[in-house]
């Protein structure tokens, strides 16, 4: 019965995820307002029929900015997750497959990177590189790949000792096709599940860096940046902070639940 529930919830969450992605992809074409068009006479208007989520300090429409922000946040997040999972997994596979001194060097380097507290290191890197969308993605990817390296390595080592790999080697399969045809496809599902579960926390970290001024720079419509701009008027114009906050909450919670559901249906221990 558990399996049916899992599948049902996974479909529900996938539906919401698709909705969010659609909003990010086509939302900007549906919005009539320009998220960067400021009309200072409309500074900090309360939510109304004209401005569903109110306006910010420069009189820009918050609803439009949040819709555009979905695109910025999601594309940054996906770029980060793709970069760190690919790079990390590749390093993991190489060290797991080659073994010896290559493994030692790569894994000690991974350990070293893991010794730093993640977000602090990301702030330092983003701070040194200077705040921008690209640098934020880089900073988070530099901090986040280690988990995938560990995962990739342990899965590769496990596979290396399995019988079908031994059979392939005996049949004369060369190392590269072996990795490409046998190891990568077997590792892939677990990496994807891990990456899916990372999306939520990456959205948070990107928003966090922007909130602190190390991520997206004004006038970019980015949720973390909007939160920081709204912070100064928290008591007099709370909508400038509440709606970007709710957007982050909604998207992060959805992606976390979706990641969990994906894990549950892929979990071999439950399929029995």
């Amino acid at each position, binding site marked *: 019965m558990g399996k049916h529930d899992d599948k049902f919830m996974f479909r529900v969450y996938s539906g919401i995820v698709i909705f969010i992605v659609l909003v990010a992809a086509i939302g900007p074409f549906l919005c009539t307002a320009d998220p960067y068009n400021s009309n200072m006479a409309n500074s900090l208007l309360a939510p109304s029929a004209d401005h569903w989520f109110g306006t910010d*300090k*420069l009189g820009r429409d918050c609803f439009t900015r949040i819709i555009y922000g979905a695109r910025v946040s999601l594309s940054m997040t996906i770029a980060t997750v793709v970069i760190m999972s690919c790079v990390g997994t590749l390093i993991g596979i190489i060290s797991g497959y080659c073994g010896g001194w290559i493994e030692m060097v790569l894994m000690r380097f991974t350990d070293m990177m893991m010794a730093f507290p993640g977000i602090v290191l990301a702030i330092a890197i983003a701070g040194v590189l200077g705040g921008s969308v690209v640098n934020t993605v880089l900073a988070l990817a530099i901090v986040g790949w280690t988990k995938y390296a560990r995962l990739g390595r342990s899965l590769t080592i496990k596979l290396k000792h399995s019988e079908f790999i031994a059979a392939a080697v005996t049949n004369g399969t060369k190392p590269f096709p072996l990795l490409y045809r046998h190891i990568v496809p077997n590792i892939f599902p677990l990496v994807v599940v891990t990456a899916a579960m990372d999306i939520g926390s990456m959205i948070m970290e990107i928003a966090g860096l922007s909130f602190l001024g190390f991520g997206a*720079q004004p006038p970019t419509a980015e949720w973390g940046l909007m939160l920081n701009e709204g*912070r*100064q008027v*928290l*008591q007099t114009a709370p909508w400038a902070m509440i709606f970007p906050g709710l957007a982050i909450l909604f998207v*992060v919670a959805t992606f976390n*639940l979706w990641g969990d559901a994906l894990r549950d249906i892929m979990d071999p221990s439950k399929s029995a």
Partner: protein
Amino acid sequence: MMISSKLKKGITAALAVGMTTMMLVGCGGGGDKKAAGDSKTLKFGVTNFADTLEPTQNYFAWVVMRYGMGETLVKFDEKMRSTPWLAESWQVSDDHLTWTFKIRDNVKFSNGNPVTAEAVKKSFERVFEKQNRAKTFFEYTEMKAEGQVLTITTKKPVATLPGQLADPLWLVVDVTAEKDRDFAKQGPICTGPYMCESFTRDKAVMKKNPNYWGGPNKVEVPFETVEIPSIDDPNTRAMALQSGEVDMAVNIAAGDIGLFRNNDKFHVDEISSLRDVLARVNQRPDHILSDKKVREALICALDRKNYNEVVLKGTFKEGSAPVPPSLDFGFDQIKNPDAYNVERANKLLDEAGWKDTDGDGIRDKDGKPLSLDFVVYNSRAELPIYAEASQADAKKVGIDIKIKTVDYNLLDKMGINGEYDLLISNITTAATGDPQSFLKGYWYSNPDGGNPQNGSGYSNPQYDALWDQLEGEFDPAKRRDLIIQLQQIIMDDSATIIYGYPITNLISSTKIKGAIMHPSDYYWLTDTIAPAK
């Protein structure tokens, strides 16, 4: 059961948001339980930049004065005129070189030692010994002390000497007390109504000075203890005031001031300050803004009235001339050739050859986009707002502004090295009651690094000549006239963007009275601040 366990993450997230909201609301709602309230202790929320209380270090003397410890010979009144403080009177000789100050004979340091001319002289010598900046105020050939009479003979005539001596750097300390007291950590021995009990960067505690001379109005020190927490974030400061954690606070920002205006629990004292928010404009030959037409166009494109009155909720006055209207240097008679006019901005840019040939909304010329670097620092809340508002307005005429946020210390260096197109800062124009040195800083020619503050490459021989004339002029009417001419040159050359003039505020609970903001931001905690009853 399955569902509830999987929803856990979502619910946890929702709870976190809920609790954060409650926490913030809790701060705002505020009960009286931790209020200072009692009439013996005052709590005062401030911003603080000082690491120590050594008055000759950096600009830390400002803090010594703001916290009610240090006093100078001369004090500025609400119109920035020099009035007697520790000095009773002063006069200058006919050759404009020798100044005689008569020191009041009833003033004592907080340790009971009398303030004699000799003590003042020792204190001044200590400043010259420890702080290089002292020489930029005046240089002396002789300083003589006889009883209560101090005579200072300067190298060159210094027209504004009394005003110079009102700068906190010249607050009078008891040099003889230094041998068994660490001024930096324990605070100097001065003459003000309060003396230092303890000091850290985060919090200072002041005690009543038992030997206080009473000030010019002969008053008792109103509070036994003053606690001064440093609350650098303006939103937090506003919340501390709302919750009763502090009885008064300085510089509540635009976003929060509405909570205190028209609120019968608070008294808002606002005054147009001596400060400018201005953007230096880099005019070096290799920069886009070396073209005067582009400078004019940029300034015309900025709707400064809106920034100050609407976006900043009137906590700033609309900028125009370099010297703010709080000082009487011809604000109303200086013409502003670059008033807000989008049409003119577009026309000027067309004339200068900047056209949008690739249709991306940004003008370009010879394949180069009209893109400017706008350097800003965040510790003053209004600066990023001006920067973003300018970015939005400039885009409307096809100018791309890239905002670069840097640390304040870096900003200073970038200003000197000219590493910017536009660089915004909030600066004081008349630290000594007179804008003479301000008018040198960003505009007097700097061909060989002799005037490092001018990193913009701006140079106008006529301006330099007028400033030199101002330096040697003693007649107030002629000085005023020269200062007006200097400002008009800056305006006509479109040399600088003057965004606005801050209106500073001091907001106090109605439980106390007498909390008044002065135009010069040296006098915060004074002997007039007392319990309301």
